[in-house]
């Protein structure tokens, strides 16, 4: 992940913590975690604020609400997190080639 490049060790550690949390968020239609599916494009930290840039498998997916709520919920469980911002983007469009 580019987000992990040129960061200090504590930041890398925190980014890894966020990724671990996000592995718990499953796409209930497909049955894989959003990390495994490659739906998370970028993570950014600014103090205690975590910004998650992600997509969904298809535009207008009604699961979008619960999934983004779930992302906010699991990231907010980390003790150092003060705020979570979720950006849902459609470019680049998700494809199965992004599954890890």
């Amino acid at each position, binding site marked *: 992940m580019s987000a992990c490049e040129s960061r200090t060790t504590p930041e890398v550690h925190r980014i890894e913590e966020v990724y671990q949390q996000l592995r718990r968020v499953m796409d*209930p239609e497909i049955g894989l975690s959003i990390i495994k599916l490659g739906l998370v494009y970028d993570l950014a930290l600014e103090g205690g604020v975590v910004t998650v840039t992600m997509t969904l498998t298809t535009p207008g997916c009604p699961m979008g609400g619960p999934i983004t*709520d779930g992302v906010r919920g699991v990231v907010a469980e980390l003790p150092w997190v003060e705020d979570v911002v979720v950006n849902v983007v459609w470019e680049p469009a998700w494809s199965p080639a992004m599954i890890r």
Partner: protein
Amino acid sequence: MADRDRQAVTTAAPPLRRPAPAAPGGGMASEGTPPFVLPGEHFAAGLAWLALGAVGLVAVAPLLAAGAFTAPPVVAVAHCFTLGWLTTSIFGALYQLFPVVLGVSARSVRAGHLTFILLEAGTASLVAGFWWFRPALLAAGWLLLFAAVGGLAWNILPQRRRAKRGQVIGLYIAGAHLGLGLAMLVAAARIGNVLGWWTVNPIRLLATHVHLAALGFATLTAIGVGSRLVPMFLLAHGHADWPLRWIGPLVGAGLVIFGGGELGGVPVLVPAGAAAMIAGMVLYLYQAWLYYQHRVRRKLDPGLALAAAAHGFLLLTLAAGVALALVPGMPPRLAALYGVLGILGWLTLFVAGIYQKILPFLTWLHRFGPRVGQPGLPTVADLVVPRWGWASLGLFTTGTLVLAAGVGVGQTGATRAGAALFAAGAAFLVAQGVRLRTVG
């Protein structure tokens, strides 16, 4: 990132230290979707009408095999499917999907419950009126249905103007409701005929009514709403959607020309209107082929396979329609076959396929959406019994084919066997729906 940012939808929560309790239905609720009970009551009633219609189909099989498509019991069963199953399902789906697709919600949930009661009471009255042939019940049913359709139109259609997305789908839904309103006016003219208030050629009225209702309302709604649902469930990306800009106008113009020709007694207009409608539907089949061609999910589940089979039946419906237009004198069994293929093969199977997708999907959202991220959650697929889905697909498609063949050759035994297989397919779908109520 710049391109991404321009298209980004940011969903920021207030600063929080612990997971915020989510509303039932998760993010769906925050987007203005109604309580689950509103679409839920529609879908439950829709399944009940499907079951009743399927049983009725077995009962009227001899009439269908004889081509008696205007016999009151046949018309009663047809309305179990068109009003009870299809229209109830469409109303429920619109309440659920309008906020998701267009970003605007219905004006009033209470009015939604009221229109549901009016729709069910009106349908029951109309079906009973046809089955036992009581013109007073027909008139009462029409009035209740008029109130139900007017109520739904008041509740959701004006909201379309505030929509920030899904304008094309909104246009399809609005156009479809215009088709339904016109179909009801033509039906009123037919009921006036029955009550002896006036005399209008009943076959011309019926032809116009059937096309306005099945094509103008149900099919245009299926195309519009399906343009979001089908690619979403198929995980289809990158397909062209230019046909959608032409299908609605072609079908709409075709209906106006066809109806004008039939009701105005201008025979030359009828084939011209039919040609426009057929062109629109061929274009739609191309659009649907694009959805399936560009799907990421290569292996179809029972719901998406049933929707695909429904498109095959739509092709057969078009062939029967062309034959009906070319063969002089409208042979009764051919007309009955056209109705069977269109109402059962295309519309019923398409909606049944969507049910197999949307019912577990909405149940999951309602029961588990607020718990995303917690361990041990089932997937959507875990909520259904796949064998029942495949059984439903096989029985529905085989039943419709046997039924259509029986009607085509005028063979009562085959028609009844096909109806029984179709009813068994409906039973598996209903069982799946009942089972979902106990999940979680």
